[in-house]
């Protein structure tokens, strides 16, 4: 079957080709199409019966016709060839080289869809990763094997934050970042792709990065394949070659929009905002590939970047993502406009795995309480700030004024830091105590009395 070319297309429309009279085609198998000019395209069987086979074409169906389209069914799912040589290479969304170098030749070819990890085989992420960014390390810590997305918006510096994490991330006690990076961009602009490439180059990690790029002007359907190809490479690096892999993916919104586009063409029933009902399952297939496995040394830590349409966190894409990922780092326009970098809005940010990766034996014994206290004090301070905006700062009590000063200092000194500033967790926690010491000790009920005595600068 692999060698027969069929010319039985009965309809061609918006990325989909219907083939008639090809019996016994496997669902999910890969397809090669040759058009009238001899150009090759690839596709996937998404519905199969003996009378009609529905094929999704990754490069799109522009300039295809019914009469002069030859289709070969390759009889296997979409597979990515893998070897050590993928390191330092740049591929397109379907895994073909786009750096002008030869394709990867390997007998080890893997289905890009992967297979679900058995929950009984998972190992729980517990190792604290220090990113050097106080707002993350101190209050929303990342652990090895976690999936922690960056929720951002147009014009916010999410790419710079992601690049800073890639440059600085390390385990405590390690000299330098020992992991490899898999970078996937879908629907990204050429400028963004170049920014990352240059940032990897400058920090000298380029030979430890595998890139999968599907840029904004490239076929939409290929976007559905890009994260899967990237994660297949990541799984190979992590669980076959024992690397700790950091996967950075941008931009999940472009991915979800591509999914919607294809779903509409397929005629799927839309759920919210026109996105298909299976958006959640589909995103989960991608995000859940992060993690650790018992008895394996490597790990996959995932930082997907997504821009929230109109900065709306309740939009289906950030909303469903938040239900799957283990927290989120939210960037905010207000802080960004005040010139605070990184503009991490800490209150809606969250790391679900933090509780098991910080504190005694991991970072420092006071870390969980300090984080909790910072959240509580800052939340309180924002309330006071709201009040001050209404009744005027001069009407405030002394205690409230101190709280306001705390908020100001917290935003400038704790959240704000340099793009090249790499703070150790001890520096972050000491800084936190400096700031908390601006508040009276009896307003700090989330930290223990012992911790107050030890660290609070105003305590007796």
């Amino acid at each position, binding site marked *: 079957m692999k060698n027969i070319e069929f010319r039985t297309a009965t309809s061609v429309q918006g990325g989909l080709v219907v083939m008639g009279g090809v019996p016994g085609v496997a669902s*999910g198998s890969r397809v090669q199409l040759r058009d009238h000019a001899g150009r090759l395209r690839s596709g996937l069987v998404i519905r199969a019966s003996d009378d009609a086979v529905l094929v999704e074409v990754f490069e799109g169906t522009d300039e295809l016709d019914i009469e002069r389209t030859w289709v070969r069914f390759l009889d296997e799912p979409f597979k990515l060839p893998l070897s050590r040589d993928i390191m330092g290479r740049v591929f397109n969304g379907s895994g073909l080289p786009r750096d002008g170098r030869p394709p990867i030749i390997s007998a080890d070819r893997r289905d890009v869809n992967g*297979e*679900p990890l058995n*929950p009984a085989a998972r190992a729980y992420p517990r190792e604290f990763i220090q990113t050097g960014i106080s707002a993350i390390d101190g209050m929303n810590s990342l652990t090895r094997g976690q999936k922690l997305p960056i929720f951002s918006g147009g014009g916010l510096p999410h790419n710079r934050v992601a690049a800073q994490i890639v440059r600085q991330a390390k385990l405590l006690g390690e000299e330098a970042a020992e992991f490899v990076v898999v970078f996937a961009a879908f629907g990204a602009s050429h400028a963004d792709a170049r920014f990352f490439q240059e940032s990897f180059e400058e920090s000298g990690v380029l030979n430890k990065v595998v890139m999968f790029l599907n840029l904004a002007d490239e076929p939409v359907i290929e976007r559905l394949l890009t994260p899967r190809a990237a994660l297949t490479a990541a799984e190979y690096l992590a669980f076959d070659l024992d690397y700790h892999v950091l996967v950075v993916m941008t931009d999940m919104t472009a991915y979800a929009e591509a999914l919607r586009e294809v779903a509409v063409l397929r005629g799927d*029933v839309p759920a919210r905002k026109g996105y298909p009902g299976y958006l959640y399952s589909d995103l*989960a297939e991608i995000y859940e590939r992060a993690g650790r496995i018992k008895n394996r040394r490597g790990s996959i830590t995932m930082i997907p970047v997504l821009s929230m349409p109109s900065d709306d966190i309740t939009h289906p894409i950030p909303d469903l993502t938040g239900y799957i990922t283990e927290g989120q780092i939210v960037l905010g326009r207000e802080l960004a406009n005040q010139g605070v970098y990184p503009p991490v809005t800490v209150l809606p940010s969250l790391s679900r795995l933090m509780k098991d990766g910080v504190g005694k034996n991991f970072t420092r014994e006071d870390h969980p309480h300090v984080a909790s206290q910072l959240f509580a004090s800052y939340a309180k301070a924002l309330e006071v700030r709201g009040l001050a905006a209404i009744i005027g700062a001069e009407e405030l009590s002394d205690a409230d004024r101190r709280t306001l000063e705390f908020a100001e200092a917290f935003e400038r000194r704790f959240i704000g830091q340099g793009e090249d500033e790499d703070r150790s967790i001890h520096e972050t926690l000491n800084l936190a105590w400096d700031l908390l010491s601006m508040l009276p000790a009896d307003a700090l009920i989330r930290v223990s009395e012992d911790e107050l005595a030890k660290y609070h600068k105003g305590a007796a």
Partner: protein
Amino acid sequence: MGKILEINGPLVKLELPQTVIGEQVRVGRMGLIGEVIGRDGDTALAQLYEDTTGLRPGEEAHGLGWPLSVELGPGLLGAIFDGVQRPLQAVWEQSGDRIARGVAVPSLPRDKAWHFVPDPARHGGSVLAGGDVLGSVQETESILHRILTPPLIQGELLELAPEGDYTLEEAIGRVRLADGRIEKLHLFHRWPVRTPRPFRQRDHAVAPLITGQRILDTFYPLLKGGKAAIPGPFGAGKTMLQQQIARWCNTEIVIYVGCGERGNELTDVLESMPELKDPHTGRPLMERTLLVANTSNMPVVAREASIYVGITLAEYFRDQGYDVVMVADSTSRWAEALREVAGRLGQMPVEEGYPAYLGSRLASFYERAGRVETFAGDHGSVTLIGAVSPPGGDFSEPVTSHTKEIIQTFWALSKELADARHYPSVDWLESFSGYVSSAAKWWAQAVDPNWESARAEALDLLAASEELQRIVNLVGVEALSSEQRWTLEAAGLIKEGLLQQSAIDEVDSFASPEKQYALLAALLEIYRQGMKLVKLGAPARRLIQMPLLAQARRWKSQHSSDDLAALKAKIAAIPDAFEPMLQEYTPASSAPREATP
């Protein structure tokens, strides 16, 4: 024997005459498992529990002759199953880290022998009916697994095996049915998951479920046999709260269904449960816990089934006379699975793409909760707690609004509270419980007769403070009278000293009913003492600076539930703290000072 006609995602059209809706099918060369959901002439439509990539039209398919069923018998406790009751630990050992397709591993281990002790009341010749206890197996140190007669069996017990070790394969008895057929009995039996297990009659729920979480037990109680929902946007702490309930609740059996949720969360439960001790028995929690896991990346149809697998397991332990809690995280993912299949079937969507039968499916699922009298004459209960994940945190969406009509206890989680790291982020204004008066009887008897009035007083205080907070937000705290400021302060004390509860603090994580009431009574005592002073003219500003207030906020994490004497001593000393000011402001009998408002 039939064959595949068409493959469309998880739906497969088969040529399979004479099949029955609900029948299990094995499809294709890989032997994928599925379930028939429609018939049209000789063609049948099946939904498969596994990924269909690689299936081809023309491959064979056959019906298995029974609906989706679970195996019920020793070996369930401490296990982790997938959405169609495949034992994930055994699957891992057999097929590796990834779940391969078409694996056939029996749900319960076949090679393990269990020590069976027959019930002395059963002997050859006695009449046997469904649900009767044949004997028991001490499955874990804390749980005696009662071996039940399968519900539909009715007849004469011909023989019952003597005490001894038996595997699940070995027969432990024979029964002659009414029609003369002879049926073997085993340590386990099968039951179809979509059919509720029968019982003698429904009973009133009487005892509250104690979860050790103050906002739940004290303010919005749930009864054993009741049904509750936990709706909340992402990041509101739904999963943490459910895990807390699974850890600390006072039922004999806990069934945790991870339906379309994160893999790491189940790993967390799997890794932490064996280390944690049941506060009621002192045994490892894993001995009473059973997990059903269909994580979000596992096939969607099995996700739909997982909820039914979980509730059937719960009913089985109920029928043994146990109190069971089933936590389903999350029913929204289940509803989405329903929607996905409905969409592929081309059924008319009503709200947000959900099929019209969403409400009735939800209702009939929740109706499987309840306290019952079993056929054996015992009392057992299934308490159902369903998490709901409303998109965008919007409680008016279909799953939340339908659920709200069905359940009795509603623990609404709030994003605002969670953002301020007020956990558990149960919103005291949005939540409700229909079980307060029933629970009050228990609290009055077991803990303190004043529970109901104290609870009401605290809730009034919280509601009043919400009003005052609105004023403060407009004009500032200085505009309030002393009385109002003290009310606001006392409400803050209740929020921080009582409602907030840390899941990761060893002492605070679980609070016994006695501790809950002691704290509640203590904080109310502080409020009343202060109010008395304010009425005498003491300015609230002075009261707010009392060190007692900061101290009282820490009591919850300073005194564990086993050691309440020290806490009670502090509570008894509350009036002393107010004494000096009381002296100062008490009007001398001769010349009463005028109280300033």
